[in-house]
């Protein structure tokens, strides 16, 4: 039973993101701002930090692929970026000491990196043609602030959940 807890949790967050953009009003944080929820990726980074690099990267790859197929229909963007940034995060964690504050900072930076990475890739394949400055104004700052808030609020429950999960797995 415990084995299925993590995949189910991630599947739920995966669908939650889609519900979020569907139901939360578009101009919640002011006109002409686009907020992109990165709940799934925040949870993936926490998984990488608190449970383990290997597990984190595997989950990142699986859910990246799922994200690409279901939502984007261009396979490769998230499939590459999710595991890549998760890997970077775990490498940085080796240098810094592992505490809660550092974990939150790494997650926020990782989300920022993801947003810029997706912009660059989409720019490359001409999905979008807005320039970098208007990308910052329109999407990056609001997204960054919103997700930072989310990570700070949801960080502690997620950490507790993953640590409990670790203990349960060890006990088995």
């Amino acid at each position, binding site marked *: 039973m415990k084995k299925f807890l993590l995949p189910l949790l991630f*599947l739920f967050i995966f*669908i939650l*993101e*889609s*519900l*979020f*953009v*569907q*139901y939360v*009003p*578009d101009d919640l944080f002011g006109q*002409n701002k*686009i907020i*992109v*929820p990165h709940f799934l990726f925040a949870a993936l980074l926490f998984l990488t930090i608190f449970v383990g690099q290997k597990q984190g990267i595997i989950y990142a790859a699986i859910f990246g692929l*799922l994200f*690409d*197929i*279901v*939502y*984007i*229909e*261009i*396979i*490769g*963007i*998230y*499939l*590459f970026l999710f595991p*890549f940034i998760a890997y970077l995060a775990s490498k940085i964690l080796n240098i810094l000491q592992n505490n809660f504050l550092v974990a939150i900072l790494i997650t926020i930076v990782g989300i920022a990196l993801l947003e810029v990475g*997706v*912009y660059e890739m*989409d720019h490359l*394949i*001409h*999905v*979008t*043609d*807005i320039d970098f400055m*208007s990308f910052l104004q*329109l*999407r990056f700052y609001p997204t960054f602030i919103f997700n930072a808030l989310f990570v700070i609020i949801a960080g502690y429950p997620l950490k507790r959940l993953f640590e409990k999960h670790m203990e349960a797995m060890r006990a088995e």
Partner: protein
Amino acid sequence: MPQFFMNKRLILLLVSIIVLVALIGFSLRERSKLSWPEQFIKDTTGWVQSLVSKPTNYVAGFFENLQDLTNTYGENKELKSRIENLASLEAQVQELKKDNKELRDVLGEKKTLRDYEPLPATVIGRNPDRWHEMIIIDKGNLNGVKKNMAVVTANGLIGKIKSVTQFSSTVQLLSSTDPKNRISAIVQGKTNVYGLVEGYDSEKKLLQVKAIPTGTEVKKGQTVITSGLGDVFPKGLLIGKVVEVKQDQYGLNQTALVKPGADFYDIRTVIVTKRTMSQSVTSDTTSGKETGS
């Protein structure tokens, strides 16, 4: 040099970049159908999504109803003032419809590009990364949805079907900036002006109708509808109203900025339009087009 190749991580990175490029190339090319693993995954997640989103839809609808209740008084007042005109308008419409039918019978032309079969569908998901503006609906191949069909809400056109699986399909909204996302449109005026809906200004939230010839006159406030030419779109679906007209870079064409009639956010239910006139009959659309407008 051998040391360079021994570096496992570097090789892994290079290989994954090659795979990435290959995969993106594979999915970017014009595809008439998704591959079966993709269809399978989309159907499975679509099922889970509809499990979650239907109750959510219900709850959200309930709260929306509560909100509506508070506006009832003002709305009622406004509607009452409008209903006075409605009766006379209805009589007029009846007459025109009859007229139109008679004239059509005389011409011997039964079907038009305007006729379509509506297929209501519920939105079960939306792309969270808002680059590719897409929504997922709960009607698929089994319900007769085909690629490129027009999707509308009560307020106007919102997009077209991008891909279909057995039980769900993906709608690409007009607000996505994909250059392949083009729709033939008419700007209604004294004479009809043809153009292409192409691109979306996400800062101003306006659609761009391009390729309007320079000599033609397009004014602010004119209505833009679909033309029904080309693909499987029916004619006469509302797109929006012209807000601004400007010359393009070389002065050969005009670009009209159009305020879309439909809201691209907060979409709960949509209607997929199945045009009754099939593609094969479109050879005589020229006459149908003139009588239709």
